[in-house]
């Protein structure tokens, strides 16, 4: 199957990520965009761009026919779905293929098998991969309450069609389950267009460890080691790393083989991730399989030196996997921090708005995958993740110290971000020690630094800024807006009177 022009059915950092690899491979790219995204970075970076409708994703990025039309009109012979949106939509994959367009992702049958989290559990069980105790199907709230009693609390509610933590709720008892179910269904509906949920026994202080796998159309499979994604907030991954500080070489091999069992069972083609929960005794349980590229693929790229998007394209073209299992390197340690437009001081409330200033870290072993630029709008319509900052070091602590330093260089104006939160995390002793579990952030450790040795410097700058402002106003006739206005335009909203 030729891949000579790629339409990216996505936006934000992942669309930019895919465009970069296509550029290097000499493959032209086609962006699609909603009305809210005319000025988005992926539109600026792509070779072509097609508007596909209004801002709500349901009316643009999620409308399969509009994506298909853009592909046909542009002559794109392949579609890269990124993550989210249509990436795990088997119907979309089928429709593209029927129209002679290569879907850069697994076969639709694999998506179907793994798309329903309950069906996926059954596949895993049959393939001989350990799973978390729970129900095998979706059911009504009433039935779920009955089943929960049988499994025993704590219980985890999950969206059947879900992923990325959306629609997920922990319930410690019946009351919490009753309260959580409608909210989980609400999020599931708005995120995946389906309000089915299922329940599993919740593992105590579990670690989220996942295996990156790759398959080709010739029946070859490799696993590209593990990532640990235990640092989560509201079931959303916040920090990912590779390898995992919990995983021994034996456990790595066992998890890799277990993951490949699932991949083989569904004749998996392309990039996929088999997610596991692990307990403190290094038992691991199949959680789900994500049939797409993950947000956190960067850390795997750091430690293997591979370009996973390039591999996706090679495999979609029908080529064999470039390397065999014994040729895959595991080199050093990588960290990734997801940079969100959110306010850590206000319960991580999303903070959309215009990015008035942006400087990203640079230097050795620092990688910034951004979907934004200075002057752009972070829209309330889409995910608040604006960038992924990743670092590499020969050892875990060197990667962490590199990250701490890189975060210190980050400057975002106009919106709030979680950069300062990540900075505190990089200095948090349980994190540095590698004692991770998915509830680590439940214990409040984050507190805004109110005073510190350098506060005086910040106040000095603010005082001079005020003084400059005052002198400027004093020297000008009333009502005039001349002078340094341009440089001060982002201060406009803070005028006193």
């Amino acid at each position, binding site marked *: 199957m030729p891949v000579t022009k790629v339409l990216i059915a996505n936006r934000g950092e992942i669309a930019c990520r895919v465009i970069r690899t296509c550029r290097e491979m000499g493959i032209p790219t086609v962006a699609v965009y909603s009305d809210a995204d005319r000025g988005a970075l992926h539109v600026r970076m792509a070779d072509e761009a097609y508007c596909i409708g209004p801002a709500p994703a349901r009316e643009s990025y999620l409308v399969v026919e509009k994506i298909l039309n853009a592909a046909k009109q542009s002559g794109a012979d392949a579609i890269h779905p990124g993550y989210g949106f249509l990436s795990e939509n088997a119907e979309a994959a089928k429709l593209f293929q029927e129209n002679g367009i290569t879907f850069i992702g697994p076969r639709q049958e694999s998506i179907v098998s793994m798309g329903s989290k309950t069906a996926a559990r059954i596949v895993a069980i049959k393939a001989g991969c350990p799973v978390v105790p729970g129900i095998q199907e979706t059911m009504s709230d009433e039935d779920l309450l009955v089943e929960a009693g049988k499994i025993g609390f704590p219980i985890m509610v999950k969206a059947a069609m879900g992923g990325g933590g*959306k629609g997920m709720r922990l319930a410690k008892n019946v009351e919490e389950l009753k309260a959580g179910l409608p*909210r989980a269904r*609400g*999020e599931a509906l*708005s995120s995946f267009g389906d309000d089915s949920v299922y329940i599993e026994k919740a593992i105590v202080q579990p670690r989220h460890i996942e295996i990156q796998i790759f398959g080709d159309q010739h029946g070859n499979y490799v696993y590209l080691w593990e990532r640990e994604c235990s640092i989560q907030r*509201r079931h959303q991954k916040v920090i990912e790393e590779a390898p995992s500080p919990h995983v021994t070489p034996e456990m790595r091999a066992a998890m890799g083989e277990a993951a490949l069992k699932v991949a083989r069972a569904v004749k998996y083609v392309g990039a996929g991730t088999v997610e596991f929960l692990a307990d403190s005794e290094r038992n691991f349980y199949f959680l789900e399989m994500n049939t797409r590229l993950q947000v956190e693929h960067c850390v795997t790229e750091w430690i293997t030196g591979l370009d996973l998007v390039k591999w996706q394209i090679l495999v979609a073209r029908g080529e064999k996997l470039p390397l065999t299992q014994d040729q895959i390197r595991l080199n050093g340690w990588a960290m990734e921090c997801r940079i969100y*437009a959110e*306010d850590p*001081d*206000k*319960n991580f*409330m*999303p*903070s*959309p708005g215009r990015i*008035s*200033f942006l400087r990203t870290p640079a230097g050795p072993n620092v990688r910034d995958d951004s979907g934004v630029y200075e002057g752009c709008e972070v829209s*309330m*319509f*889409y*995910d*608040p993740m604006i960038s992924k900052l990743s670092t590499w070091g020969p050892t875990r602590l060197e990667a962490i110290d590199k990250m701490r330093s890189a975060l*210190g*260089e980050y*400057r*975002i*104006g*106009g919106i709030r971000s979680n*950069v*300062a939160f990540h900075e505190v995390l990089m200095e948090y002793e349980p994190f540095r020690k590698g004692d991770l579990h998915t509830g680590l952030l439940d214990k409040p450790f984050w507190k*805004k*630094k*109110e*005073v*510190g*040795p*350098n*506060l*005086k*410097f*910040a*106040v*000095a*700058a*603010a*005082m*001079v*800024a*005020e*003084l*400059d402002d*005052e002198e400027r106003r004093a020297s000008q006739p009333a009502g005039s807006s001349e002078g340094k206005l341009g*440089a*001060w335009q*982002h*201060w406009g*909203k*803070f005028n*006193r*009177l």
Partner: protein
Amino acid sequence: MKRTLLIGKETHDVEILRRDGETTLSWDGTAEAVDILEVGSGNWSVIMGHKSVDVRLDGLKHSDPDIQGFRATLFDATYEFALQDPRKALLAAASGAAASGGPLTAPMPGKVVKLLVNEGDPVSEGQPLLIMEAMKMQNELRATSAGRVSKITVQEGATVETGGTLMILVAPEAD
């Protein structure tokens, strides 16, 4: 120029003097020379006693229009503080303490998914009041102090802008 620095629960008297090209910062009466350079709009390089600190300043809206809020991003930390003209502070103090309670406003643009209280309900500190959806996440807005819901000004399903009033709360003693 004199200001009262408000940070957390602390206050400090700060003063900046610029004379003959020299700038002096006085902090609760202790003066120190400061070498300060604007290296871009909102970006400052500050050297005091040979210590060098790079400061990114963003303005923050304060509920009192006479107070200028700041967020300062430094290499080691992010600080939030506010500066108040001490003359205006005196005026404000003279006019009496602000009424307790007040409007609950939307901290971001989004959609009101669910109201969790009714008009007239008493609420306790931290009690969820309504659920807003923005950026694909549902967020609970909670009461910052105990009180009573005096009026609800939005309906479920409504789209609101940042700062839009959602409901009016009154302090318990106002009942």
